[in-house]
């Protein structure tokens, strides 16, 4: 049976069909042999035995004819009738001689029946001799005179009885020979019949055996081909349904024929699919991990964006405070200016007002101090804003770093991370924008600082002028003129302060505007993050669907 498995299918089929052909040849050979043997026997009977029988019966027939013709010779017949009989008798003898010559080949065939042949030959010879004896008186009768005829007839009649005896014995012997020939034909025919029966039995046995053998061969070859194919189809159906757990049975793998090759191919296919599914599962896992990391990065970026937004709000409210302080300063500057004008009027009214003036001067000095204090506070608040923008810059720097990391992660995610990498680029540019805005704010703050310094200086100048005015408040015309001059300077300083404040206000407006743009950048940042989150979700879904796909297979 193992031999059966190792022969190629082609070899099996060739062997099966070859066996059928051999069986057919054996059966056909048997039939051909029996038919040719029968026909040979028939031919022998037709060409040999039947002519023999015929010659023998002819001899018998003409023997009787000669006997009748001999008996017909009677004295009461006239000469003409006798001549006719004699002629006919001679012709009959000629036929008999001719037939006897044909007998020679019979004698050759039946050499083993020498005794019978000899008796036939002897009796024929004696029969021929006695007829020769009859010929002499008969021919004499035809020539003789009527007186002599009577004697000759008597002589003829005396030979008749022995002739009849010899004729009978010849007939008997020829019949015997004929019966031998007949027996021979009978025996031949019956032996052929016997052979025919045996042969048909043998043919029947051969047909049954051959049929069984052919059926067995056909069954075993077909089953050795069709059973593994059915098994293979079942395996492939399982593969189609995603069940990769079953291997091809060893019994098929060990076969060395085409079925074995097919089994190896199916096994290789199964193993390949298994490996691929395992590899795909790994890819799906790493995809999920990447998606998770991206989500984590996104939430970090979102948190820092929220911090930025809070810082911006804080900056804005501080700026509002600065603005209100500046407004107060302006108002106070205007008051100073007004007071100075009033002072000048008072001085011009005269000496008496000097005391009052001094009092007014003191008041002005106090106000100056208050302005200086306010401006110093303003300077401190500007410093605070500087700190906050520093924080904004730091946050922007961190966002930039996160964006770089996000781009690196996106590159690892490959083709699917490409969208994310574009978004990371956008986040990076937004971080850059935030940084630029913060820098702008810092630049503006420097200008504010400058303006504040100028305001402080102007305040100091004003204070000095007030002091000098107080010193020179002697009730002389010159000193009053000096005081007037001092008031003029003071008024000038107040207007300088006002100008500085206006500059400061415009600076504050610029800061507020910058803050607005930082806020806007933050909002965009958040929107971008939402998109990234969506992209990460898509990545996660993709990982899930890939994993679902893989789960359809059972490895």
């Amino acid at each position, binding site marked *: 049976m193992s031999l059966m498995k190792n022969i190629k299918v082609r070899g099996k089929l060739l062997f099966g069909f070859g066996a059928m052909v051999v069986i057919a040849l054996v059966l056909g050979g048997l039939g051909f042999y029996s038919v040719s043997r029968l026909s040979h026997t028939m031919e022998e009977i037709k060409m040999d035995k039947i002519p023999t029988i015929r010659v023998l019966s002819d001899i018998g027939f003409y023997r009787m004819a000669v006997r009748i013709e001999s008996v017909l010779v009677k004295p009461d017949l006239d000469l003409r009738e006798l001549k006719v009989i004699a002629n006919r008798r001679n012709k009959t003898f000629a036929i008999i001689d001719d037939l006897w010559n044909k007998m020679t080949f019979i004698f050759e065939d039946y050499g083993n029946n020498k005794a019978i042949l000899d008796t036939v030959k002897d009796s024929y010879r004696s029969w021929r001799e006695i007829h020769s004896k009859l010929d002499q008186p008969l021919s004499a009768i035809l020539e003789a005179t009527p007186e002599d005829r009577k004697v000759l007839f008597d002589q003829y009649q005396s030979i008749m009885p022995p002739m009849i005896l010899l004729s009978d014995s010849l007939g008997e012997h020829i019949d015997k020979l004929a019966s031998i020939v007949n027996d021979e034909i009978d025996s031949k025919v019956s032996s052929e019949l016997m052979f025919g029966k045996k042969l048909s039995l043998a043919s029947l046995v051969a047909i049954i055996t051959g049929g069984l053998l052919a059926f067995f061969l056909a069954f075993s070859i077909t089953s050795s081909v069709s059973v593994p194919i059915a098994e293979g189809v079942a395996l492939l159906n399982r593969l189609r349904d995603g069940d990769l757990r079953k291997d091809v049975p060893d019994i098929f793998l060990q076969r060395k024929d085409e079925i074995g090759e097919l089994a190896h191919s199916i096994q290789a296919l199964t193993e390949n699919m298994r490996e691929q599914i395992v590899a795909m599962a790994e890819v799906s896992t790493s995809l999920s991990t990447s998606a998770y990391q991206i989500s984590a990065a996104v939430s970090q970026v979102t948190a820092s964006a929220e911090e930025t937004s809070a810082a911006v709000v804080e900056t804005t409210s501080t700026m509002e405070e600065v603005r209100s302080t500046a407004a107060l300063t302006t108002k106070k500057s205007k008051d100073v200016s007004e007071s100075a004008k009033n002072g000048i009027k008072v001085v011009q009214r005269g000496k008496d007002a000097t005391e009052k003036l001094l009092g007014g001067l003191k008041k002005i000095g106090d106000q100056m101090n208050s302005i200086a204090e306010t401006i110093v506070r303003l300077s401190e608040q500007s410093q605070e804003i500087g700190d906050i923008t520093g924080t904004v810059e730091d946050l922007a720097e961190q966002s930039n*770093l996160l964006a770089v990391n996000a781009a*690196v992660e996106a590159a690892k995610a490959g083709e699917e991370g490409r969208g994310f*990498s574009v978004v990371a680029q956008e986040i990076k540019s937004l971080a850059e924008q935030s940084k630029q805005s913060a820098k702008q704010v810092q630049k503006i703050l420097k200008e504010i600082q400058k303006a504040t310094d100028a305001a402080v200086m102007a305040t100091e100048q004003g204070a000095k002028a007030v002091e000098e005015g107080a010193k020179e408040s002697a009730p002389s015309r010159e000193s009053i003129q000096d005081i007037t001059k001092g008031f003029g300077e003071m008024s000038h300083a107040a207007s300088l302060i006002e100008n500085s404040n206006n500059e400061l206000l415009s600076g504050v407006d610029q800061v507020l505007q910058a803050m607005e743009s930082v806020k806007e950048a933050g909002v965009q940042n958040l929107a*971008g993050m939402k*998109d990234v989150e969506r992209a990460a979700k898509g990545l996660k879904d993709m990982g899930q669907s890939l994993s679902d796909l893989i789960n359809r297979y059972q490895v």
Partner: protein
Amino acid sequence: MRKTKSTILRERANSLASKKNLDFLGKRNELVSFRLNDESYAISSLHIGEVFPLKEITKTPGVPGFVVGIINLRGRMLSVINPKVLLNLPEGPEERDGRFIVTLRSESMEFGLMVDPPLDVISVASLSLDPPIPSSSEKASYVAGLLKDVIVLNGSIILSDPDLVINKSYGN
């Protein structure tokens, strides 16, 4: 007016993030760039693990000059290498923003490179490099080529350099 501008920017962000518009971008090569003193350098992002500012580093005794020390990266110990020592560059003054770590990562190797800011991502369509300036240095193979004025380092060669592997028995 301001509202409109914000809407336009939002739409642009949406369209860039949506998948259908990605095809026109083609395949991009991304490089992470950094500075060593006044020169710009870059490494393909395929070899980069992550980047982060250097905060705390533990100096390790008995290691070659190019090893700065070890850091704690989320519970993992990571050795930090100074590329300036490897590339025979002078140790410049520290920047205002401090120093940064770029981790190089392969299946068998991971370590940090200590670099100067600013860090950035360069995205180019084709990675055709100009040949590097010929050098007799034994570490010349670290330089893959020039991308305009950026020196591109070969991350896979640095990662696979056996000279950078410190034998376990070395420190004992």
